[in-house]
């Protein structure tokens, strides 16, 4: 034990122990944070799903009275906000957090405390947003919040303030995590892992973090302007004072279109791991997969005004954005064809992860094709703001992003929890979801082309909308059954795994480096550095070629996998401060809305947390490390991933 005598006044020692709830709220372990992200996002998914079912109940019959116009507007607004910002984005963050360090052979992310901060800020932001329900004043201006309908005259309640501040808070989480993961990928890859030996999932997450880094500031600006308009009498969006309400649309969609790729690319990454594994072939055209992802990321910045084809922005700009939108279909098409080519000639096993991944390929194809049909600006003047668009983006975000995330759940569940999810229930989950999904959103193509507008709380009989709306509502409840099957699966699988030994290494005969660790991943990740020589390093350690060029097994998974027995790995200490800092933010939010006095405790909490954060000992000598190891001088040489590991010891972490 080393004596510490020079501890500054007011500086807390770092939390001790790694059990119980105290561990969960102070953890800086990327794996636990990943699990927290996933669990929280799934809770929000249930809330957003409930909102979706209410929407479908209201629209099941003409002249519906389940919700009424006012409540309907709030429910559909919160459904969109929840699913985009509190479900798909954090679910992607869950996978990124858990898997990205493992895929690049690192011990943790670059800034573990910042990572914890991202999660807690996201949680408090999400809870803050949903508090709007408790205060009886949920936002009613749509997730797109077009000005001036969101100004004080037209939305006088507190709803749009909850929206602006809630998204502002979750935006902080996204920005912090984007910087963290970019630094992690660029600095902490295992020896030998060049950028072009990184798994496609890691690549897609990297692209997404750059998109977040540049897109989130734009919506931050927009939300601040909205906040100032609403609370401090500014006139950024007030046309009476000469403002142009289209300013909001430009800001929102310059964020909003890259956001679409922020939602979809992680799923593309996931299925780019799943499809090769279950086809038993390497990903087809790896460099093209990577570059098409990067191309989508770049081109995603040049298409935002296709959301504004009918807003009156002028024929020349519409023409330019119409053409740029058409060409973004090219890299997306490249991806779909490469996935098909990966399966071609393979030996496909249809386990649940592969079913979901195939679902993504087919359903996203439909969403992509309908997307092409409204890149034609003249056609879009008929299609925009109808259910045709609702169908399109649900095929992209549900059929593309969410199904991919479910593929990821089934694929990596053993890595995270040490047991497989049940295959039989998994297949129920898949088929219920995909049938329900197509029943719900397939008919919306028809409804939209028949002229059913979006965001209407009801419709009259006589417009031909009755049959397919009822059909879609039935489909939505089948999706609900699919989600129940998943929850049941999680519960039953966990119960039957209790007491049983963990699933062995490599349950899927996988290819990428995260499978070098045993299942579930030990707290220190890797026993020793892995030396990366090729893409699919893990697979190449298991298989080689005989003299006839045939693939033969050269080692068993047990031989290749590490056994997780290392006990001397230095790990970053947990910290109280991320959660304390995050807790201050909603208080500041309430202060801006109700009484500026609330900002005082909120601000004090944030300042105190920053102070504590900066001055807490980099490595608490009294604190226990997960493997009972305290010092960190003599074994620095074996730290994984090089010197960037020391980032946590520097005050910037």
């Amino acid at each position: 034990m080393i004596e510490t005598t020079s501890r500054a006044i007011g500086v807390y020692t770092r939390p001790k122990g790694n059990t119980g709830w105290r561990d969960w709220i102070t953890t800086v372990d990327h794996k636990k944070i990943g699990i927290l992200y996933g669990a929280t996002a799934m809770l929000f998914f249930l809330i957003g799903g409930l909102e979706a079912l209410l929407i479908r109940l209201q629209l099941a019959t003409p002249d519906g009275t389940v919700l009424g116009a006012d409540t309907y507007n709030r429910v559909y607004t919160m459904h969109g906000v929840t699913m985009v910002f509190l479900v798909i984005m954090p679910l992607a963050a869950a996978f990124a957090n858990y898997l990205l360090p493992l895929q690049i052979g690192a011990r943790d992310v670059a800034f573990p405390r910042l990572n914890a901060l991202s999660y807690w800020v996201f949680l408090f932001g999400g809870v803050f947003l949903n508090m709007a329900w408790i205060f009886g004043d949920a936002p009613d201006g749509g997730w797109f919040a077009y000005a001036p309908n969101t100004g004080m005259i037209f939305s006088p309640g507190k709803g749009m303030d909850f929206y602006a501040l809630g998204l502002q808070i979750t935006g902080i989480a996204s920005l912090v995590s984007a910087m963290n993961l970019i630094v992690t990928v660029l600095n902490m890859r295992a020896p030998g892992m060049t950028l072009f030996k990184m798994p496609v999932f890691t690549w897609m997450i990297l692209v997404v973090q750059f998109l977040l880094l540049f897109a989130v500031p734009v919506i931050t600006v927009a939300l601040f302007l909205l906040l100032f308009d609403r609370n401090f009498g500014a006139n950024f969006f007030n046309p009476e004072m000469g403002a142009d309400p289209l300013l909001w649309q430009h800001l929102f969609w310059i964020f909003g279109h890259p956001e679409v790729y922020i939602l979809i690319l992680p799923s593309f990454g996931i299925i780019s791991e799943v499809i090769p594994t279950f086809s038993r072939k390497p990903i087809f055209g790896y460099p093209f997969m990577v570059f098409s992802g990067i191309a989508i990321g770049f081109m995603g910045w040049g298409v935002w005004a296709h959301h504004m084809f009918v807003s009156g922005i002028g024929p020349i700009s519409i023409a330019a954005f119409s053409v740029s939108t058409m060409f973004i279909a090219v890299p997306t098409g490249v991806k779909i064809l490469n996935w098909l080519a990966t399966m071609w000639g393979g030996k496909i096993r249809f386990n649940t992860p592969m079913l979901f991944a195939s679902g993504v390929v087919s359903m996203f194809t439909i969403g992509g094709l309908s997307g092409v049909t409204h890149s034609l600006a003249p056609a879009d003047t008929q299609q925009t703001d109808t259910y045709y668009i609702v169908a399109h983006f649900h095929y992209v975000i549900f059929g593309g992003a969410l199904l991919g995330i479910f593929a990821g759940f089934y694929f990596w569940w053993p890595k995270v929890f040490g047991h497989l999810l049940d295959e039989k229930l998994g297949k129920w989950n898949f088929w219920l979801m995909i049938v329900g999904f197509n029943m719900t959103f397939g008919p919306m193509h028809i409804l939209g082309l028949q002229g059913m507008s979006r965001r209407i709380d009801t419709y009259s009989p006589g417009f031909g909308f009755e049959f397919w709306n009822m059909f879609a509502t039935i489909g939505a409840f089948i999706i609900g059954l699919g989600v129940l099957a998943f929850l049941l699966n999680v519960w039953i699988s966990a119960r039957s795994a209790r007491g049983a030994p963990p699933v062995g290494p490599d349950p899927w005969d996988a290819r990428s480096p995260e499978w070098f660790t045993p299942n579930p991943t030990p707290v220190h990740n890797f026993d020793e550095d892995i030396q990366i020589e090729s893409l699919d390093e893990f697979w190449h350690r298991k298989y080689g070629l005989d003299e006839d060029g045939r693939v033969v097994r050269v080692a068993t998974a047990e031989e290749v996998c590490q056994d997780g027995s290392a006990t001397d790995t230095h790990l970053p200490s947990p910290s109280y401060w991320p959660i304390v800092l995050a807790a201050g933010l909603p208080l500041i939010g309430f202060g801006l809305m109700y009484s500026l006095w609330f900002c005082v405790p909120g601000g004090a909490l944030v300042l105190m947390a920053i102070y504590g954060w900066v001055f807490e000992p980099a490595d608490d000598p009294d604190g226990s490390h997960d493997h009972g190891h305290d010092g960190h001088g003599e074994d620095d040489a074996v730290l994984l991933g090089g010197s960037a590991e020391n980032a946590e010891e520097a005050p910037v972490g």
Partner: protein
Amino acid sequence: MRPRRFTALVFGGLAVLTGCASDAPLDTLKPQGPISRAIDDLSDPVFLIAGIVFVIIFGATAVIWWKFRDDHSTDEFPDQVHGHLRAEIGWTVGPAVLMALIAVFTLLTHFDINSEDRDDIVVNLDGERTSWDPQVVVVGQQWWWEFRYYFDGLEGVDLSDPRHLPPADIVTANQLVIPTGSEVGLQVTSRDVIHSFWIPALNGKRDAVPYRVSPWKIEAETPGFYFGQCTEFCGLSHSRMQMQAVAMDPLDFQAWIDEQTQAATEPVGAAAQRGKAIFEGQCARCHVVNGINDGGGADLVSNAAPNLTHFMSRTTYAGGIFDLYEPDGSLNRPQLEAWLRNAPAEKPAYAEGRRGMPAMGLSESQIDDVVAYLQTLGTSPAMEVIAATEVDR
């Protein structure tokens, strides 16, 4: 394979299924005018191409799943193919060329539907022949549409402040009346939030952005009644903000102009006269009846309420959502009385926030009187128009 077969049905059978819905008056795939037909001619082949690509991709997927499924017949690993440069170039360039081709036709149609190709039409105003550049000012507000006709043309008409527009020759609400066979220019704006003007059978939509005037156009070939719906979310009663276009042959259109340019006349009958007094005391705070009060603005956020001078000449009211007439041509009295009794209960509005018609607190006999007065305002439209209004609602 069920979902794939199902989606094949959805996509492949899209045209068939929507075509079957004969009672879909907002159908986007049944153009009734040259502009909407130009859009349809562009999108139909692209729907077809998308359908073909869909069938190819789904067919290929089905083949791949069947052909390359692991049947456990051998332990052998498949060939570890890493890629194929020519294939990659092919499926990058191929779709790019296809998109470029589509882009050419898209741009042609796009600039076509955004160009102006209007001819003046001759109308008779108070016996004087006037050459009118057919343009209508379309003004959206929560939750109804106003249409303003300036027969001297829009040059010199200051549209920069939509809450204080210069007086027009005709001001009407919710039903846009146009002559057939002429392209009619629209100048679309809004008095409060963003709305979107859309008559799918005649053209795509154009947003009504407050304090901005966006040009758009519309053209119908045959006389008829064409439904529309506000398609930009505009708050509480967005779904109840509808409109219709009524296309008339030029002779009927001239007759319509003749009627609409008349101011209201003094009502006959005691009930109607009492109703007029109530109107002047209450309704005239917001509503204009030419000859009774002039357009001095309304006590509302939008500073406007529907002009009622020729109320009876329209077949719908309250944002185009209620039928004014029964199918037999008689007055739909119960609905109109309910509306006068308590408007917010019939159509959600923020009356207390001065957005939408409030409950006027009229007694039953006062309501009868107001209905009697309203019936003197304008003449009923032709039976064909009344019949066409019915969509079995």
